[in-house]
């Protein structure tokens, strides 16, 4: 299945790592990158990706605000947070903002592909770094 992905993180080295991992999956394409929430909102509008991989803490506009705005204008696009914040409260905020997935950065190499696959099928994928198994529903 082809999935068109937009990668958003303020560190280009992290974007590069995410891109390498995602493009290793046959049929998936990273169609664009953004370095902050405002750029993410603009590129989401212009590129209409299937899935957006989004960081929380970024300059100009953080990921939560960007997520709320994007969900308002593009309800079909799925958003997956990949973040440093290993916290149930932050995960709840992300889901309330309209995200479908939440992955802690330290687990990204293990969980990212399964998470993108799940959210692209409009399922919820969440995992924290507490030793529990990822939740998919």
């Amino acid at each position, binding site marked *: 299945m082809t999935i068109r992905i937009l990668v958003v993180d303020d*560190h280009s*080295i*992290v974007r*590069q*790592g995410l891109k390498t991992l995602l493009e290793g999956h046959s049929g998936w394409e990273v169609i664009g990158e953004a370095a902050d929430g405002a750029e993410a909102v603009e590129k989401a509008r212009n590129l209409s990706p299937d899935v957006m991989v989004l960081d929380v803490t970024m300059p100009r506009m*953080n*990921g939560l605000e960007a997520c709320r705005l994007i969900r308002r204008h593009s309800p079909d696009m799925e958003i997956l947070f990949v973040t440093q914040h290993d*916290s149930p409260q932050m995960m709840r905020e992300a889901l309330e903002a309209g995200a479908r997935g939440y992955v802690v950065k*330290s687990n990204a190499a293990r969980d990212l592909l399964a998470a993108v696959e799940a959210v692209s099928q409009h399922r919820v994928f969440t995992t924290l770094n507490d030793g529990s198994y990822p939740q998919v529903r």
Partner: protein
Amino acid sequence: MKLRILLADDHEIVRRGLRALLEKHEGWEVCGEASDGREAIEKALQLNPDVVIVDIGMPNLNGLDTTRQLLQHDPHFKVIVLTITDSDQVIREALDAGARGFVLKSDAARDLVSAVEALQNKRMFFTPRVNDLVLAGFLEKGQTVSRNEAPKLPTLTAREREITQLLAEGNSSKEVASLLNLSTKTVETHRSNIMRKLSFHSIRDLVVYAIKNNLIQIELPPPPKTPAGPTAA
């Protein structure tokens, strides 16, 4: 002969990004990866890389103490420190630890290749802020910043700093003992000495000290959404 680089960062996704960036450069290869400071030291001694790139904020043993310990083992190791902040204190500590390169993570895609090239050519590489700070120290005092303006030398020994980091990360004395191959009693003794030296009475004080002294790093959540102002009835 290829230039061999060892990467140490606790996030595999960052290591992937760094590897992709560095291996684009002809004649360079990433000979190994480590996910914390202890593993970095072990792999550096085993692989003898030409350049070691270490993240400051790693669990178990942070990048600054990793740099110190690596250079104690062999002063010929060339270390580039990757950091999320270039505060004066972090710069001073990195210089003091013996790093020969200092690159901000946010600028890594732009600066890291230049930093490795500099070390390859037996030079050092620092961000403009580090250069400014070092220069300011020379101009104002006629001596290096680290000699004149650095905060007091840490009162803790290398072993005590390691134990402080592990305790601040939430490990019990028993867990610290297991990680460092020490007896629980030895760790308890170190712990008492640390608390006495720093005049601390709780683990909370120790956590704050560890954050302030870059033994551990935390990422703060974004500020909450500004609530809407009161509306007129």
